[in-house]
């Protein structure tokens, strides 16, 4: 447990609401990555990220300092995203270019270096295929993929974050990857057919 986080949490519990700001600033990026990888709709992401932090603040007294704050807030984020997905299904595929951005909102930025246009094209295609495939996963499977690949959590951390047994984590990761693999292969096949 990060002692700095714990100190801020203590101050919040003593009534200092401003002490929550450093926690928001530290974890808003990782929470927004999780939510965005599960929901893929920028405006919804903003709303959900805000809800996650408000929820965390109001439930701060239930936080168990045995676990890192990051794991705890990731659990809230994943649960909120799953809740949103279950209410929203079936969902439409939403591309970045289709999202209407409100004034002042921030568009997702790609920070990867761009070596060559060809490499960029391949990567963009892969990214699109992956997005499509992830959006076709059930929320529970989506959650393990996001925590494993976008939060870099190991199996034990995922088990804690999702409050599920280790065996279930392994099972869901296997099922999620098998499905992603088949979806990506199927889409690759369709793309090649269209090119011909």
């Amino acid at each position, binding site marked *: 447990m990060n002692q700095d986080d714990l100190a801020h949490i203590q101050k*919040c*519990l003593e009534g200092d*609401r*401003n002490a*929550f*700001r450093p926690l*928001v*600033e530290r974890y*808003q*990026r990782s929470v*927004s*990555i999780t939510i*965005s990888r599960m929901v893929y709709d920028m405006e919804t*992401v*903003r709303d959900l*990220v*805000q809800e996650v*932090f*408000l929820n965390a*603040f*109001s*439930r*701060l*007294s*239930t936080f168990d300092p045995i676990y890192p704050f990051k794991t705890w807030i990731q659990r809230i984020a994943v649960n909120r995203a799953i809740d949103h997905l279950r209410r929203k299904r079936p969902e439409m595929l939403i591309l970045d270019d289709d999202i209407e951005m409100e004034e002042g909102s*921030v568009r*997702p*930025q*790609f*920070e*990867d270096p761009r070596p060559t246009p060809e490499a960029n094209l391949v*990567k963009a295609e*892969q*990214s699109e*295929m*992956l997005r499509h495939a992830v959006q076709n996963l059930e929320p529970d499977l989506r959650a393990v*993929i996001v925590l*494993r*690949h*976008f939060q870099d959590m*190991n*199996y034990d951390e995922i088990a804690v974050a999702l409050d599920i047994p280790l065996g279930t984590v*392994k099972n869901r*990761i*296997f099922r999620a*990857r098998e499905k*992603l*693999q088949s979806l*990506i292969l199927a889409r690759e096949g369709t793309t090649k057919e269209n090119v011909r």
Partner: protein
Amino acid sequence: MKCDQYLQLLDPYMDDELNVGERDAFEHHAKVCGTCHARLEDRRKLLNILTSARNEEWSIDIADSIMTAIQTMPATGSSSPLRLPIIIAVASTLIVFLLLMLFGAGSIVTGIPPLDILKTLVSMVEMPSTVQSNLHELRIIFGTLLGVGKSMILLIWSFFRSSVMSSPLLAIPAAGLLAGIAFILWFRVRFSRGTS
């Protein structure tokens, strides 16, 4: 190692979650089984796509709006204001119910007035060594336990027959229980009206 065992270890292998022995067995099987080797390569491709997608960062900064929302949240504390009073009400009701049940039922079975039972039980707590040699006290203990069991059954049965009053002493714990439930319901209704 058989192919189905290999399949179970495929993702833990890719995620570096295997011990040395499992890892060696896995790698040996991958060398000798063409199908499983192909599976491993497919999985590697998928993980490369996922890894490359990880570099696409979502840049989002909504700390100000989160903190504004937190500052305007009602000052009800970090836990539900209803929780503690409800816990106290439920606990008090249960204690009263159990005490009434204990003495009421013990009195019915043993024929000893409830107050005498209370005095005897208190003396047993103060001087436990005298209990074993005192038949009268043993009779009270077993009689009370037996009475509680019988009373529970009778109480439920009495409710169904709407004839609690046919056994006046049974009406005491029943009334206590009903009063407790009524109090909790009244408290909840009144409190939720007050907060809405």
